[in-house]
């Protein structure tokens, strides 16, 4: 099964969850998503999602200067973002439970 389509639907939720756990810059968020098991996620998708969530006010952003390399753009979650995360988490729980139930019904 091509999981990239499934991923598109839940990438917001996943990114919000990761940033909620700890502020992070783009590549850091990507790495944590992959470490968490979303190995097929594309980096541009993650960066784009971060930018979109920032535009919609779910994330805040700040630049951490670096003496050795280019400045890093960190993202942190906002109150709006937390509310969104809570809502989407509930939606996901409900949705996945429904689909799981359906699949079990078919299997038995």
């Amino acid at each position: 099964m091509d999981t990239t389509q499934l991923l598109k639907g839940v990438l917001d939720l996943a990114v919000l969850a990761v940033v909620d756990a700890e502020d992070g810059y783009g590549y850091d968020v990507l790495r944590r998503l992959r470490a968490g098991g979303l190995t097929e996620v594309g980096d541009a998708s993650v960066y784009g999602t971060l930018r979109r969530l920032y535009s919609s006010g779910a994330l805040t952003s700040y630049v951490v200067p670096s003496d050795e390399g280019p400045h890093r753009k960190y993202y942190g979650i906002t109150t709006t973002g937390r509310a969104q995360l809570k809502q989407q988490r509930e939606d996901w729980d409900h949705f996945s439970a429904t689909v799981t139930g359906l699949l079990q019904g078919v299997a038995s």
Partner: protein
Amino acid sequence: MNESLTAVRPEVVDFVAAVRARLADLSEDEREELVGGLDADLTELVDDRGVDALGDPAAYAEELRAAAGLSPGVARLRAPIGARVTGWIDTVGERWHRLVSRDGVRPVWEFLVTLRPVWWVIRAWIVVEAIDVWWGGAPFTIVPSITDGIALGVPVLLAAVVASVLLGRRRFERTWLRLLVLTGNVGAVLVFPHVADHLEWRNQTDTGPAYSKGWNHGYNQASSDFQAETLVVAGASDGLAFNGQPVINVFPYDANGKPLTGVQLFNENGDPLVLNKNMATEERKSITYPWLRSGAGVWNVFPMPVGPWLDDPNKGFRDDIAWFSPTPPTLPVSPVAEVRPVSLPKGPR
């Protein structure tokens, strides 16, 4: 300390520049929001997985855009040409309707809208007439001729009117049909002056009793030829004219109605009345030749002989040598053999 982190890798700089170029349609702020900090992230990515991990900047920009929710912008750019054309037509249509629904304009526009069927008929006529002109089936008359008679012209015109009205009563959704109708309407408007220019309006008004219908036809044909000729012959507007049309030849009759030959004509100042020397007769196969006095051409003597038309741009349209050819110029047959006698109240002279 990881040495490679001290600066952005050149590959990454190039890659970010390429991505930035793919986002050129976005506003400065949007673009900065998308690519800001990208160099740091990508540098780390390359450190982890090598330069090959960068991939194609175009695909990368697409993915970035889509994930950032800017896909509508992409969709607008990438929309099929048909949808875009429909969009343009709709936009122009909306603006037009806004314009004509203004208080001052609305009554005028509503009146014009009621005249739409008239336009449907006119555009059908223009199209058929344009075909007529294009096919070169002279003379061009108000009722299109298509072929020599009007036998084919009338049914073709009627069919075109019916088609045009049917077309006008329908509303089209498909882009290419809308475009076709739009192009047709604009084309009909643009072609109209050309068609009107070719029309032989005289055919409707000139029904002089002395001329037979065949002569009238021939005359019109000759003047159609002349109209084509005026494009290349300088000074074609010189010479005798009647009703604005250049005269090709003059046929004098005496008071008893008998044809005369060798009549010299002058105006009130004693100046010779001459025709346009470049005026051709029917189908440009023949042209008038002057009478001679001591070997020199005299141009005010009528009727003028008609001889071969020489289509030689260097020598002109006629050559005196024609007089000695197997087919020398001859006096043309008078349009009518005899006209009715005329007199003054006290009798001729």
